[in-house]
């Protein structure tokens, strides 16, 4: 049983296809990294998959009613918007909007989400007064509080400090390990190699490679898609990935 199945998904801006005929299936237990250079169509692919963009082809999430989808998949947009000076606890509680749970259930989910992101001490702080990285973590906690079988995140770790980046990726891989599905776009190929069970390489709106990090992040693929040279090595402390140079 998969939550997200895309079949021949295409998104056109004018006549130009931004996403070109993408088909894929995500399974429970997978932590999927969506990789690709700027403008490859990562955000567009995820928004179309959610049904937030008009598209051709089918997406299983887009076919649901908006409330079904809200209970099936949490979406963490790239733009980190917090419009009003609400408390962190109240902001995270917004993730409970799609649920009709009791007060106790909601409070438990909020406390759980705050704990996962290490934000217990911030609960009563005003969200808009936090630093950018802290706000990003609060917003991730909001998506976690939605407590959905699937989580889709658009560059969630951009701008976080190294510890917070690792902690966040670990939260995602733990979610996957507990039987959920995570799809996250990211530019940190090293963290993708270490924490994702599967990576999808997107280039000019089409999937170039899809599989285990070691099979996808090959020198040929990296050269073709990113135009970079990198070092990839399996060590006894897990995979190590380091970008080295650009190719001209």
């Amino acid at each position, binding site marked *: 049983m998969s939550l997200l199945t895309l079949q021949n998904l295409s998104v056109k801006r004018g006549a130009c296809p931004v996403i070109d005929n993408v088909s894929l299936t995500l399974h429970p237990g997978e932590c999927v990294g969506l990789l690709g250079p700027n403008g490859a169509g990562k955000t567009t692919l995820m928004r179309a998959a959610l049904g937030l963009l008009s598209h051709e082809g089918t997406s299983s999430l887009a076919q649901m009613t*908006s409330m079904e989808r809200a209970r099936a998949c949490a979406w963490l947009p790239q733009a980190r918007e917090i419009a009003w000076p609400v408390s962190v606890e109240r902001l995270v509680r*917004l993730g409970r909007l799609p649920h009709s749970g009791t007060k106790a259930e909601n409070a438990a989910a909020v406390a759980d989400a705050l704990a996962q992101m290490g934000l217990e001490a911030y609960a009563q702080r005003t969200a808009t007064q936090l630093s950018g990285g802290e706000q990003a973590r609060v917003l991730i906690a909001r998506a976690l509080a939605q407590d959905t079988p699937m989580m889709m995140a658009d560059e969630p770790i951009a701008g976080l400090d190294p510890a917070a980046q690792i902690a966040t990726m670990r939260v995602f891989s733990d979610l996957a390990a507990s039987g959920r599905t995570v799809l996250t776009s990211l530019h940190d190929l090293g963290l993708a190699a270490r924490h994702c069970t599967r990576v999808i390489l997107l280039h000019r709106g089409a999937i170039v490679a899809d599989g285990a990090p070691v099979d996808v992040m090959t020198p040929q693929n990296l050269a073709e898609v990113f135009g970079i040279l990198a070092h990839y090595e399996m060590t006894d402390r897990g995979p190590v990935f380091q970008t080295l140079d650009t190719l001209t």
Partner: protein
Amino acid sequence: MKLTVLLTTLCVVLFVISLVTGTTPVSVWHSFTSLFATDDTPMSVVMQQIRLPRALLAVMIGASLGVSGAAMQGYLRNPLAEPGLIGVSAAAGLGAVLALQTGLAAAFALALPLSALLAALIAVAMILTLAGPGGAALTLILAGIAISALASAFTSLVLNLSPNPFAAAEIVFWMLGSLADRSFSHVWLALPFMVVGWVLLGSLGRGLDALTLGEDAAAAMGVRLPRLRLALVIGTAACVGAGTAVAGSIGFVGLVVPHVLRPFVGGQPSRLLWASALGGAAMVLAADIAVRVALPDRDLKLGVLMALVGAPLFLHLIYKTRGTLQ
């Protein structure tokens, strides 16, 4: 909760003060016995047919402006938004001005407010057509600004072509906004529209809360943005259109009240809706008392006083919060 009680108490107290304030010097007790008397003495006529509808209209219009201001700020995620932004108040004003200019206003009692309401309705239809079927905020603002500008231009044209200074003065005075000499027919005309508006705007709480995180996140949390925007536009138009139709344009309430009350509700848009309704009612009641107390024999206009008080208050708030806004 405490805030609701506080604001409700404030409204009740101001409502009572509004009832006993006026040019006829009588005791508070006499005012109240006259309010419920059925003896048709001059005092009971004054209480029942002049002061009661006046106080009721102040509550209705204040609540309408407050709730639509809070909803508009919540939807646009901008503390500078106000209900006039979608152009409905300018259009309603134009409708009223046309009724005055053509002499229609003198033809029958409710010609002026009906004409204003009709113009507001046309403006809503135009905004919804212009803004398109999507749920985005930007097209709505742009459409609102365009309609507002158009309505203001026509209003200026009517003033420009006005045949004599008296007609022009009548129009200008009407536009300043007032609750003087309104009757129960005004209450009954505005009430159905306002109730529809209150119900529509009151139902937006969840969606506005979700919009704190932006349109994309809100949509992914199950908020249907096109529907939310439709309810917002129709609700605001019903509230503001009806308010302008019976009282002229009264500014600042929809801007200042949500801004003042936001810190007391922890910034949450859904809680701000009802707090702003109560706060708006209190503010208009207070201002309408003030115009009668300040210059009892000069017919000081409500809209003028509101701006005179509201603008400095707003400046003070900006001065106080400029550190936290950065």
